[in-house]
């Protein structure tokens, strides 16, 4: 596992070295901070995705939950609610969507793929219904500072991302809940027979994912100064990509958030580098798709050798 993470890190460093050689502008402080800032939203969504994939599931609804939580936030702010209350409402909406996912998967014994696919459509639909399809724009500077402020020279979204990763990493490695995430993903039946309350923890895992989507939505809304019902399209793809590039097994039970962070950074650096090199956004999609498949292929080959 540690070797695998090291491999991902080498990939990131190699990628940076290549981009540095190709375009000197890449390795400037302002560009790197720019990459970190652009990565932060995907990286935070990928935290929730990592919890879910570690537990042996998948969450396709993250992008739609980003949109719905953002819309809830926008509506609350426009209704003159305090920023803190509005943020709590957005976080609550995200966690609730996730909890519903988890309850349907656990109690209904439905495949996560189907349940979250349904939620992907329903949350998106709900966001469109309440806004009548129009964006909610124009917020106070105080709220916008969540995206625009800098502490020292570090942009606030990057700090939020780091904070989220530190907390989530501690939860995953130092709490019973974190241990059960791995155990459920490794062998759900054995975990249940060991007296772990799987029917409580599994919905909670999806709630974490919804909560992370809501955190990302807050940053996104502040940055765009607009809550859009069509926000977060294809975020599930980026989050799954960051997670699997980071070495988390799609079968569940193995992986880490350190890997996911590196995975998200690889995605961010790759996008940034391709932009700097003037590669068309159409071509970028092909490259990124190939990187995702390539990363999983390498992982699969390595595993085959191990066993």
């Amino acid at each position, binding site marked *: 596992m540690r070797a695998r993470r090291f491999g991902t890190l080498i990939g990131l460093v190699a990628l940076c070295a290549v981009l540095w050689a190709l375009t000197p502008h890449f390795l400037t402080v302002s560009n790197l901070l720019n990459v970190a800032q652009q990565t932060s939203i995907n990286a935070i969504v990928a935290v929730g995705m990592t919890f879910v994939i570690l537990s042996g599931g998948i969450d396709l609804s993250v992008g739609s939950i980003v949109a719905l939580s953002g819309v809830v936030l926008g509506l609350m702010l426009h209704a003159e609610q305090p920023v803190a209350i509005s943020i709590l409402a957005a976080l609550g909406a995200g966690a609730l969507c996730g909890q519903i996912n988890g309850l349907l998967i656990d109690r209904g014994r439905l495949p996560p793929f189907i349940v979250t696919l349904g939620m992907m459509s329903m949350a998106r639909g709900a966001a469109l219904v309440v806004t009548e399809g129009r964006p909610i724009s124009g917020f106070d500077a105080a709220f916008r500072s969540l995206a625009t402020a800098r502490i020292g020279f570090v942009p606030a979204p990057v700090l939020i991302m780091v904070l989220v990763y530190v907390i989530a990493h501690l939860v995953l*490695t*130092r*709490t*019973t*809940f*974190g*241990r*059960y995430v*791995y*155990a459920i993903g*490794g*062998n759900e*039946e*054995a*975990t*249940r*027979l*060991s*007296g*772990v*309350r799987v029917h409580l923890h599994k919905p909670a895992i999806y709630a974490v994912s919804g909560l992370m989507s809501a955190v990302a939505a807050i940053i996104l809304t502040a940055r765009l100064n607009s809550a859009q019902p069509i926000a977060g399209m294809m975020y599930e793809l980026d989050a799954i990509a960051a997670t699997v590039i980071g070495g988390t097994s799609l079968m569940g*039970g*193995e992986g880490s958030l350190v890997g996911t962070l590196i995975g998200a950074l690889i995605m961010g650096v790759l996008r940034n580098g391709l932009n700097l090199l003037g590669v068309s956004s159409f071509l970028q999609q092909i490259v990124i798709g190939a990187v995702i498949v390539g990363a999983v292929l390498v992982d699969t080959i390595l595993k085959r050798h191990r066993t």
Partner: protein
Amino acid sequence: MVEIAKSLKDLSGSDQRRILVMDEPTSALTSREVDQLFGLIERLVAQGVAIVYITHRLDEVYRIGHRVTVMRDGCHIATRLLTDVTLEELVRLMANRDLGEHFPKVRQSPGEELLRLEGVARSPVLNEINLRLRAGEVVGVAGLLGAGRTELARVIAGADRADRGRIIVRGTITKLRSPVDAIRCGIGLLPEDRKAQGLVAGLTVARNIALPHGRQLARFGCLSARAEVRFAEPWVRELRIKATPSQPVRLLSGGNQQKVVLGKWVSGDARIFIFDEPTRGVDVGAKVEIYHLMNRLTSAGAGIIMISSELPELIGMSDRILVMHRGRICTEMDSADASQERVLSAALGLH
């Protein structure tokens, strides 16, 4: 029935090869369908088709067979004409396994009652189960595949719910709705399939052993790796698990993996143990260690329900033996009076 029809269709296509192999074809059929099948078999035989018919239902052998071959532990034991062999003789051929090994059984005088089942049922797999387990006792459960032994284990461990009957743990009527309830009552299950139900292969030895005890080991929901290792270490030594606590169990041998599953329960305060095929896929050395562990548990006042398909082990290590047949306990015997033949003929439903 559909499966049988398909294979017949294939057969009619190729008129040269005329051998049909049937492996327990009647296990999923009603008795009327069985009659139809046997009628069909007679017609096929009359047409010159040869049939290899595998079954554990001896009455079927006599109804349709001409010759019978007995196999045991992967070896050919005997082939006889059915007109020359009596039912008793057949059972003896099937049963007579070489005891070969000595079992280090230490009998305890049984103490207080730990567990009683009264009329427990779970349709369609379990029917009218009555069972008592006392402190210091090993109760063996015999039966053929599909007789309901594992289903019984799962009901006692709270993995499946009983739909009727009473379960009494240490004098108190108890509802076992989930493994959590069973564990709270001090019931530990060593499941039949350790890979599928006993272990989380990717987690370490320490984490597997500590898995049922997470709540006790944690402080405010926080669980340190050090606390898990400190908890598991004495048991790794006690059970002589040949691994360090921080190794993933995936890398361990079958015997050591089984000891890790045992460690999950002996490390807690369980007093009622259900061992479902405890020595399956385990090397000889680990087998003997598991037997010794059973002795230590019973001498400390625990009770063990041991399910096993290995008749010598069942007779050698149990105090009493319950034999299951088609979801019921059909016979109970003291293991001192038990012989492989007696157990097997009861399991075959010949009484």
